[in-house]
């Protein structure tokens, strides 16, 4: 038998206290010279043998109760095994949850800090010769520290532990712990799971009997130590998006940031900043009511062309990990737009010029998104996507084969093409030049041209996403092209009568839009409507960004990065969890293509090769832990009971480990024994008093 507090065993000597008090009471008597001795019985009934026996019994009961209490306070434990040396050793695996929810701040320290302290407490209870392993949930299994007797090493690893970005499950920890303990059989083995109450983490816990592997068969004891409160006070950024397509330097661009408050408390005047890399470009205070999402629209200006990484940050608001969200933005130089026409009217492109170059046309100070150049079809230029971003084929006459070939090459190489009809366009010329029974550039044939009609148009697809177009607008249409059958996915804008107004098509690396109205004035009031400018600008942004790959992708997307003349035939992927994966590159001519698809974690991925800065990608997706759905005490108890896991509070770790080392603790039965003795003492004392009264003593 061992004692957890053996020093308290000295209290057993206090058992003689009642006897001492009794003797002291006798010793401190009052002497009285007394005359009425005749009324004092020479041998009082109360001091008879029975009385004395009861009194001695009471003394024994009182002394016994005190001795038993001292014994209980010394916390005796039964040895769990006959082998003393084995009983003094333990094999312990500490499973510490480092998932994002553990970053939740509570009173100036994170839950991970609490968990770290708890783990160190567990570590502090171990002795020389004990073996301990460490599993960090949120980090992959290959980071597990196998059983070692170097407790200091484990302590150092705990000290450097940081909140991971990957979610964690307790069941994963159980399996990994079982694997670590599988080779140990001779000593008591325990798994200490230190985690918060995140419902997601505990959701997949394995019920009793379902656990497999040697950990179960060799009766490994699993102890869970929950840390942190049940507060679900967290707000996070759900998304950050660009609403206007590719921006150009100096031109304000709209971004939308969705902020979610998942707690039951309103958040008022919560600071939010937007940074371009390290440069603060916007800041604002926002109010987010409890359990709701707020969309914050901001207008920012990016001064230089190239790759940008915008990062929105709120708070701090609960879990730091989801307080930020990033958006990869490519800022391009103003689009070079080439309009090819067979018109002789010099003013035909006045509206289009105004829409694409409002500052230049008006002579105002500002940056236009595009530079428009108009050439006649007779002066057919050589087309190169690296020079012109977009070609507008304004009114399609019968094109020569070389023109068609040049346009197809241009689009296939990543250029953008807008095809619009004109008075000189016939269905035959359209279909023969750009449709070619579906093999041409146009997404649809033209069947006819309709009569005057007042029609509304509305956006039906997203490539031209812009808040201006989300609301239907009405224009007066005098004439329009009636497209033939078009696939649903090719529809961009429809009229109110469901006829397509704008269709799209991908051709090679480029994009094609076909509009049923001229891009210039004529046929309708479109060019004079207030939506003409944003519509045309959006179409130009869409068409001109075909060569720019989308760097904001949902989780599990495949990322592709092209490098010209790479020095190495492999690339490195820096993941948001800090890991770096090396991937091979596919070489084509002088260019290398790196493809990476292990994008299950939201965050920033950087693909780079030697001598380059690399390409940043943003993988967006919901943070699993953000909602912070926490288990109540009752739920956690029920869960642990079902899974045969012992739930222990942090302040009871010492006792738990002592119990493991030495066997079950006897404190509780002993306390029950003390109470029983006290009850018996009361009974005897009451009976003695009753007898005395009955005998007239």
């Amino acid at each position, binding site marked *: 038998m061992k004692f957890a507090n053996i020093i308290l065993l000295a209290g057993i000597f206090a058992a003689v206290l009642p006897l001492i008090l009794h003797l002291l009471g006798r010793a401190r008597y009052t002497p009285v010279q007394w005359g009425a001795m005749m009324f004092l019985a020479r041998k*009082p009934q109360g001091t008879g043998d029975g009385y004395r026996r009861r009194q001695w019994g009471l003394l024994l009961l009182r002394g016994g109760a005190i001795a038993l209490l001292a014994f209980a306070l010394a916390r005796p434990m039964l040895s769990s095994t006959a082998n003393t040396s084995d009983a003094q050793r333990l094999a312990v695996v500490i499973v510490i949850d480092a998932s994002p929810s553990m970053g939740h701040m509570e009173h100036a320290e994170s839950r991970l800090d609490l968990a770290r302290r708890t783990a160190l407490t567990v570590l502090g209870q171990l002795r020389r010769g004990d073996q301990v392993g460490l599993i960090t949930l949120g980090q992959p299994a290959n980071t597990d520290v196998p059983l070692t007797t170097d407790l200091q090493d484990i302590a150092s690893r705990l000290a450097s532990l940081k909140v991971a970005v990957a979610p964690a499950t307790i069941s994963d920890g159980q399996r990994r712990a079982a694997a670590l303990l599988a080779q140990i059989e001779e000593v008591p083995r325990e798994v200490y799971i230190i985690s918060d109450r995140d419902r997601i983490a505990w959701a997949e816990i394995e019920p009793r009997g379902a656990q497999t592997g040697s950990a179960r068969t060799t009766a490994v004891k699993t102890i869970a130590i929950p840390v942190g409160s049940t507060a679900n006070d967290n707000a996070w950024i759900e998304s950050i998006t660009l609403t206007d397509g590719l921006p150009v330097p100096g031109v304000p661009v709209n971004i939308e940031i969705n902020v979610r408050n998942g707690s039951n408390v309103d958040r008022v005047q919560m600071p939010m900043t937007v940074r371009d890399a390290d440069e603060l470009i916007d800041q604002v205070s926002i109010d987010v009511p409890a359990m709701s999402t707020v969309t914050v629209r901001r207008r920012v200006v990016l001064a230089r062309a190239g790759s940008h990484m915008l990062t929105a940050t709120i708070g701090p608001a609960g879990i730091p990990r989801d307080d930020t969200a990033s958006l990869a933005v490519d800022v391009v130089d103003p689009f070079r737009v080439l309009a090819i026409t067979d018109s002789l009217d010099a003013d035909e492109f006045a509206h289009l010029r105004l829409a694409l170059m409002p500052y230049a046309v008006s002579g105002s100070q500002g940056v236009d998104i595009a530079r428009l150049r108009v050439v006649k079809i007779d002066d057919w230029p050589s087309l190169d996507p690296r020079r012109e971003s977009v070609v507008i084929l304004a009114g399609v006459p019968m094109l020569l084969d070389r023109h068609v070939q040049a346009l197809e090459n241009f689009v296939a190489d990543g250029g953008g093409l807008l095809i619009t009809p004109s008075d000189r366009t016939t269905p035959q010329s359209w279909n023969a030049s750009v449709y070619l029974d579906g093999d041409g550039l146009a997404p649809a044939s033209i069947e006819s041209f309709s009569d005057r009609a007042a029609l509304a148009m509305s956006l039906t697809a997203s490539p031209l996403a812009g808040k201006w177009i989300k609301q239907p607008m009405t224009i007066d249409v005098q004439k329009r092209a009636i497209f033939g059958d078009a696939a649903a996915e090719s529809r961009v804008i429809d009229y109110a009568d469901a006829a397509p107004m704008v269709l799209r098509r991908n051709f090679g690396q480029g994009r094609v839009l076909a509009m049923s109205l001229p891009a210039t004035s004529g046929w309708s009031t479109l060019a004079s409507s207030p939506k003409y400018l944003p519509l045309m600008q959006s179409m130009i942004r869409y068409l001109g960004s075909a060569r720019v790959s989308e760097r904001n992708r949902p989780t599990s997307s495949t990322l592709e990065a092209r490098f010209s003349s790479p020095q190495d035939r492999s690339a490195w992927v820096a993941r948001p969890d800090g890991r770096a994966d090396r991937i091979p590159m596919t070489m084509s001519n002088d260019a290398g293509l790196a493809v990476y698809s292990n994008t299950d974690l939201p965050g920033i991925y950087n693909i780079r090769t030697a001598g380059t800065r690399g390409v940043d990608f943003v993988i967006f997706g919901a943070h699993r832990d953000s909602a912070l759905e926490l288990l109540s005490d009752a739920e956690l108890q029920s869960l642990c009971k079902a899974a045969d896991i012992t739930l222990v509070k942090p302040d009871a770790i010492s006792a738990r480990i002592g119990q493991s080392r030495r066997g079950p603790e006897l404190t509780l039965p002993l306390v029950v024994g003390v109470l029983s003795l006290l009850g018996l003492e009361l009974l005897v004392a009451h009976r003695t008093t009753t007898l005395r009264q009955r005998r007239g003593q």
Partner: protein
Amino acid sequence: MHVLGRLLDPQLVEQLSRLSLSGRRVVDGAAVGQHKSPVKGASIEFRQHRAYVPGDEPRRVDWRLLARSDRVFVKEYDEETNLRATTFLDASGSMAYGAPARKFDYATRLSAALGYLMLAHSESAGLAIAGSDSNTWLAPSTASDQLTRMVHLLERAVPRGATVLGRALGHIADRLGRRSLVIVISDCLLPASELLNGLGRLVHDRHEVVLVRLLHEDEINFPFQSWVRFSGTEGEAAHMVEAPQVRRKYIERFERHERQLHEGCSTLGIETVRLETSLPLIDAVTAVIRRRRG
């Protein structure tokens, strides 16, 4: 009166001056006083006739009756006489209990007060002090220095030794001779039968007896707490007891003893007065006087 001042304060003396004694029974007396004498003789109040015996004074012969009936009778008269009172003080060791004033101190003052009261009313006052070693006896007298002698005796008396009250009462009865009022002041801490025997002797000799039982309140209530070592004042073995545990039994025995005493005295026609030392002395004197007046 300065001698009395050593035992009684002036205020008490003044209060005593307003009290008087009156005999419930007829007592013998050597001086003419306000009490009827049981001695039949030539006095002013005719009592009875009796047959003449040789030796009777011729002047007591009722000549008229002789003339009418030719038989010789003598007249007998009740004689007015003074009160002969003797205070009997118990000086056993048990009377030494009490603090700051002992029972014996209280008893001496009570004896002095009674003596003063009797002498002030031209009665004969005597004193008997019964100790374990010796008995002190001062015969009743109306002499002017009687009170001084009483006070001297009382001052010299020391309570000690075992109670020999029964035997001492017998000795007093032998000395009293004529019938008297005997006021016995004692704590009566001796077996009731022993005390009643002594008192019975006095009653048998036709003395009027008033038993004044003087106790300290501790002896009545037994208020001790915790452990107490009782040492007997009359030589009994010491007794260590946990006082609260024996209190009930003590009181029961005390009351039984008192009941025996009271019943015995009633049978003997003895008036009893129980006094506590906490009682003001004038009230104690009054209680004794009132009891005697019946």
